[in-house]
């Protein structure tokens, strides 16, 4: 393999990793605060892709501004979901919330089938085919901007979590919910906020991904698994862990193309997930350490 191809593969993996980090962080945030695995994540990613599609095609909105509308909308959706579905089953065994959110995902997916049909959609804008050349390596402008938007949001989120009161309260709740309520944090409200944020991060990921990939109502499923794989790889403790996990997965996926058929690319993340569980179930940070027996 020529050095140039190698570099361009690595760069494309890094760009993908940025997207992966956003969607995984949404999952990690909700898990961290509420100890819930949000299976509806997949549905949110898919619905936000459709919403972006609709904003861009019907209102000719600049595709990179779409998150400004999509994220707040899904933040509200997240608040509503938390109130309707999560609050009533607080304290139930974790499997109930998993199944419940699975049901929510089924509803989202099939409503999408009803409204949008099963056809594959893609968003084509003036940016889609533009490339710029840096040191003779062609880079898709579209993917560069998507990456940049993602990084900006992640940095903003990091600042929010470390500098503001609600952000710190979220982290306190994730660390120890009982202690958090003892020091006077309104756990109910903070949980709601965290859920809304998690959902809006998933929506951001979906919105940005819709500019790069084709999508249909089944769009989020493989991404849900990838997010989980990343969370398992990198742990839930920090944004660095999530970023690292994203990078590992993106790199493995990018280089697997050399040996594997393109149709089998998704296979990599699932196989990686099972492999990690098999080989080093105790050696991983965070989630796994807490959950293995």
């Amino acid at each position, binding site marked *: 393999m020529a050095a140039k191809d190698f570099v361009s593969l690595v760069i494309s993996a890094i760009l993908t990793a940025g997207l992966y980090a956003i969607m995984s962080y949404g999952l990690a945030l909700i898990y961290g605060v509420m100890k819930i695995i949000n299976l509806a994540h997949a549905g949110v990613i898919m619905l936000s892709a459709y919403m972006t599609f609709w904003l861009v095609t019907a209102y000719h909105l600049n595709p990179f501004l779409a998150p400004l509308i999509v994220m707040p909308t899904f933040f509200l959706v997240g608040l509503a979901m938390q109130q309707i579905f999560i609050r009533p*089953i607080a304290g139930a065994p974790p499997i109930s919330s998993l199944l419940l959110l699975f049901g929510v995902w089924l509803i989202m997916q099939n409503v999408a089938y009803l409204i949008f049909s099963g056809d594959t959609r893609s968003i084509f804008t003036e940016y889609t085919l533009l490339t710029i050349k840096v040191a003779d390596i062609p880079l898709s402008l579209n993917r560069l901007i998507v990456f940049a938007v993602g990084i900006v949001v992640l940095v903003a989120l990091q600042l929010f979590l470390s500098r503001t009161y609600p952000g710190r309260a979220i982290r306190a709740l994730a660390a120890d919910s009982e202690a958090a309520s003892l020091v006077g944090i309104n756990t109910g409200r903070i949980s709601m906020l965290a859920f809304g944020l998690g959902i809006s991060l998933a929506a951001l990921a979906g919105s940005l991904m819709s500019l790069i990939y084709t999508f249909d109502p089944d769009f989020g499923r493989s991404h849900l698994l990838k997010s989980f794989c990343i969370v398992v790889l990198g742990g839930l403790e920090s944004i660095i862990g999530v970023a690292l996990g994203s990078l590992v997965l993106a790199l493995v996926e990018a280089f697997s193309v050399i040996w594997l058929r393109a149709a089998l690319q998704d296979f990599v993340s699932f196989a990686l997930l099972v492999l990690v569980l098999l080989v080093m179930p105790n050696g991983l940070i965070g989630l796994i350490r807490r959950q293995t027996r």
Partner: protein
Amino acid sequence: MKRFYPPRTLLAWLVAIGSLGMLVILPILFKGSYWQTLAFITFLFVSLSISWNITGGYAGQVSFGHSTFLGLGAFATAIITLRTGLPAPFTIPIAGFLAMVYGFLWGYPTLRLRGPYFSIATIGVGEATRLFMTNLDDSLRNIPRLKELVKYRPLTGGASGLTLPIPPDIQSYALKFYYVALLFMLGVLAVSWWIRRSRFGLALFAINMDPDAAETLGVSTARYNVLALMVSAFLVGVVGSLYAQYFFFIDPREMFSFQNSIAMVLMPIIGGIGTLWGPVLGAVVFKVVEDRLLTTHLEWGPLSINFVQFNLLLYGLLLVLIILFEPGGVLGLLRRMKGSRLLKRAFTPARQKG
């Protein structure tokens, strides 16, 4: 508490024997009809539902990857029959055994994870298996040493699937399979019933209620969970084999599909997870609702609504409502309805939901 209710027990036996009798004579009344096929497929789904319930309900390990066993069973039968000429019925135990081995292979690593984490991992296993099996033929073609395997005939058939030879006398063949499936369903029910009463079942219930406490009492959670998954896998594998033999055509994308895994999760939950009869009831409700929806076509003014699309939407709604309001499913609802101590006794769940 008195443990014997003669009139009610008698009634229960009468109902059981009566409905069984109806199932036995159904194909004679409606020979080779649509109802016969519907009943056949319902038997298979009841079996799937009960089998899933052994891991998902008794041990509390919710698996979204059971279609791997269904597909493996079906393809084991199809491939062995097509390649060796072994009569299809002889492949049934092989199909079950292979599914069981596969259950061990992926259950052993993933069952180290608890609850929701195991569930997510099983989605991964299911997807990976489906992709692998769908692309197997094309991948093998690119590997020089294994090219011979798929040179003249397909292994899994990829996107086009596999077709089994159709016997000359299709009517009596279908009738034979109707009874085979009925018997198998009763067998699976017996296995489920036996597990509930055995030490094995007690261990599973203990794991479901509190894995840490179970471990303290000397129950090896990992071993029992894997064992439960293997039993479940064997039964589902056999269903896959029966499916392939009855319908003569299997397609890896469909057999290994996520939809099949979802169906196996939904049926016991609709009926009443962790109970003996819940999965049976759930599967019947699931299959009949699905069948009605498939055949209903509503004309309402200018609107023409095809209900096929509502299928999974409806189940999603049902799932949400059940978890929110009646975790015991249809049985829980029945039990809540006033009265019957019989219902209470027969339908006590493995784990009292809190």
